[in-house]
């Protein structure tokens, strides 16, 4: 009886061997839903609390302090984030739903060539390129299912969202410079009621959680539905400490801390690590054992390496008439014309342009960190007449861009904090400059008085640190996300991406997780 299921699900004994999923975001939440629907018992360990839509704060700083992952971390390397935000390499969420709680909603698919960058880009000095072990054709049916789960606009009969003010500027500029492939989506927020959730009321808050639930997240869809099967127990405020293995090397349990700091062991027949691309490698590195002295599943030496954060930048343009970019869906505007491979532009890979709006509080903090004086207040004073967009494109994997354990810093539990080391590849720099230039042209075509080029924010897209590879020596996991060298250990988040493509990653993480769950269910069904 559904009514008898407790809020966090039917309890599962700690010594019962189940599928243990670390993280409840796009990857972990989806795996929990897919497995529990098939009758497979799951325990979901989520480091953060279960915030409900009524808890979300529609105020930038209040929401940030409520849900951002603010445990100790460091940023290092020559990139500017390490200077401006040395303890905030990434802006991701610590709550049930993970970063789907604050994701914007853009859901483009990866392109065919983006699964085979080594073949297409050739040898690029300094880049650790590798073809994925799967192709777009392999993933296409799962993209369909992911788009239906999310309710992406413009797909499978879902209508488009209307044009908001920021999009009107963006799309008119796009048209004037000759772009064709622009629209208000695909976008993971309902334009009309769908799947039990309402249509957007254009309330302007995405990065703070969507109180209306028009936006898809695993916190409003997959996690509660997994619990409703009666076969999934959610344990919020549970910090994973180690994944352990048995004498034969098979993953057999997860050690974790509860909210009071008590250590528990949950027995596992399968472990799915889905803590995002900083926490997942951190957990594997913390799980070193005599069999795996350099970190669990790290015989390739690739755990934590090839960290990608997308090549990003923002452009804010000032006009002589009001825009009020903050009204409405934040990122319901996508231009795909530059998301292609054409090295005559001076770089490999492609990028999207997507509408973006920040409130004055965040714009002040991020538009030009450290800036002050009249050149800064000129940007802020124009707030009401400002339009904004985000450049998001493929960055190249580099072995030295890397998540490691910081020996000099610990988190609140005494566990080593992660350090995120990053340096742009020259290809990334060239792409960003191209994007800034195209955005200037776009806005100037509709009368911009001036534009400001904003540097990358703390990363919202964190990828590649447990990458998928055909050969065990090239990466951490196989085409199903299972560790090459630890049976029963899967990675279920954006860490597995061999390369990052141009597209926002959430849709692909969900598609990969659906595919992985199907594989795990088959394996368990055959007793493998």
């Amino acid at each position, binding site marked *: 009886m559904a009514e008898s299921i407790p809020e966090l699900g039917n309890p599962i004994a700690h010594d019962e061997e189940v599928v243990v999923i670390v993280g409840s975001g796009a990857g972990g939440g989806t795996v929990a839903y897919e497995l529990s629907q098939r009758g497979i018992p799951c325990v979901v360990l989520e480091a953060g609390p279960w915030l409900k839509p009524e808890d979300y704060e*529609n*105020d*930038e700083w209040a929401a940030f302090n409520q849900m951002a992952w603010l445990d100790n971390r460091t940023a290092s390397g020559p990139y500017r984030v390490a200077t401006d935000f040395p303890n905030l390499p990434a802006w991701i969420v610590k709550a049930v739903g993970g970063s789907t709680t604050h994701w914007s909603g853009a859901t483009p698919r990866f392109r*065919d*060539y983006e699964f085979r960058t080594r073949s*297409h880009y*050739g040898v690029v000095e300094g880049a650790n390129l590798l073809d994925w072990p799967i192709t*777009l054709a392999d993933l296409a049916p799962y993209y369909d299912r992911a788009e239906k789960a999310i309710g992406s606009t*413009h797909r499978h009969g879902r209508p*488009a*969202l*209307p*044009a*908001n*003010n920021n*999009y*009107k*500027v963006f*799309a*008119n500029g796009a*048209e004037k410079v000759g772009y*064709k492939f*622009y*629209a*208000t989506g695909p976008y993971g927020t309902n334009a009309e009621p769908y799947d039990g959730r309402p249509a*957007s*009321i*254009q*309330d*302007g*808050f995405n990065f703070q959680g969507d*109180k*209306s639930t028009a936006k898809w997240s695993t916190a409003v869809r997959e996690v509660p539905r997994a619990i409703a099967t009666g076969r999934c127990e959610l344990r919020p405020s549970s910090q994973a400490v180690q994944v352990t293995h048995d004498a034969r090397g098979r993953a057999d349990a997860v050690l974790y801390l509860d909210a009071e700091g008590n250590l528990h062991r949950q027995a596992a027949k399968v472990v799915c690590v889905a803590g995002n691309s900083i926490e997942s490698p951190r957990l594997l590195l913390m799980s070193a054992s005599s069999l795996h002295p350099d970190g669990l599943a790290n015989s390739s030496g690739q755990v934590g390496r090839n960290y990608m954060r997308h090549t990003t930048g923002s452009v804010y343009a000032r006009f002589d*008439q*009001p*825009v*009020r970019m*903050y*009204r*409405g869906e934040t990122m319901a505007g996508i231009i795909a*014309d530059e*998301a*292609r491979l*054409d*090295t*005559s532009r001076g770089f490999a890979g492609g990028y999207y342009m997507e509408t973006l709006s920040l*409130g*004055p*509080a965040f*714009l*002040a*903090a991020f538009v030009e960190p450290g800036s*002050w*004086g*009249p050149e800064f*207040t000129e940007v*802020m*004073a124009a*707030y*009401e007449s400002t339009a904004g967009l985000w450049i998001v494109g493929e960055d190249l994997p580099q072995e030295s861009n890397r998540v490691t354990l910081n020996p000099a810093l610990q988190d609140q539990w005494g566990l080593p904090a992660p350090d995120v080391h990053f340096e742009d590849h020259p290809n990334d720099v060239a792409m960003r400059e191209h994007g800034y230039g195209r955005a200037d042209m776009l806005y100037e075509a509709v009368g911009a008085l001036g534009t400001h080029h904003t540097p990358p924010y703390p990363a919202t897209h964190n990828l590649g640190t447990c990458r998928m590879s055909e050969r065990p020596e090239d990466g951490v996991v196989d085409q199903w996300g299972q560790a090459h060298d630890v049976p029963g250990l899967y990675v279920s988040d954006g860490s597995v991406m061999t390369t990052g493509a141009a597209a926002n990653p959430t849709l692909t993480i969900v598609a990969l997780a659906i595919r992985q769950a199907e594989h795990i269910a088959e394996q368990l069904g055959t007793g493998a």
Partner: protein
Amino acid sequence: MPETPALAPAVRTNLVRLLRAAYPHPSFPDGPYERTADHILGQLDESLWHRIALTSGLESLDASAQRSRGTAFADLDDDAALALLRGIADAEFFAFIRGVTVVTLYNDHEVWDLLGYEGESYSKGGYLHRGFDDLDWLPSPRVEEYDGPERLVEVAPDDVPATTSTTGGR
């Protein structure tokens, strides 16, 4: 906690003047700057070092103003105050002030009003019927994806690998 002596009134006056010079918004009244100054001063109780650095930093601005202009820092005009601040831009006390100001001044609701930001809207039904699409100085653009004759060329002809066939060919 041991008692710390109260800050001299000139500290707050100079700090408000500094904020106006560093973050010049002619349309802003004194209120937001004063609230930001008070917020900065409120944080000094938590850090003796910031208290020392800020107090001596503001005193040094006064001394510089006296030396170069023969007047108190608070009495400098905007350009002169800005020039003085440019000279100490890297000073620790000024970095501290900026770090707090950028997250305080622009989080002030009066400032939101002055900048034309309306903030939270969920409780009012969102902006759906309150102007989310009221921009009228540009035509209404297409919201659907392009369905004309052109196709996006995912891989330029020169970038097709010589040794492999790719989808889209033939």
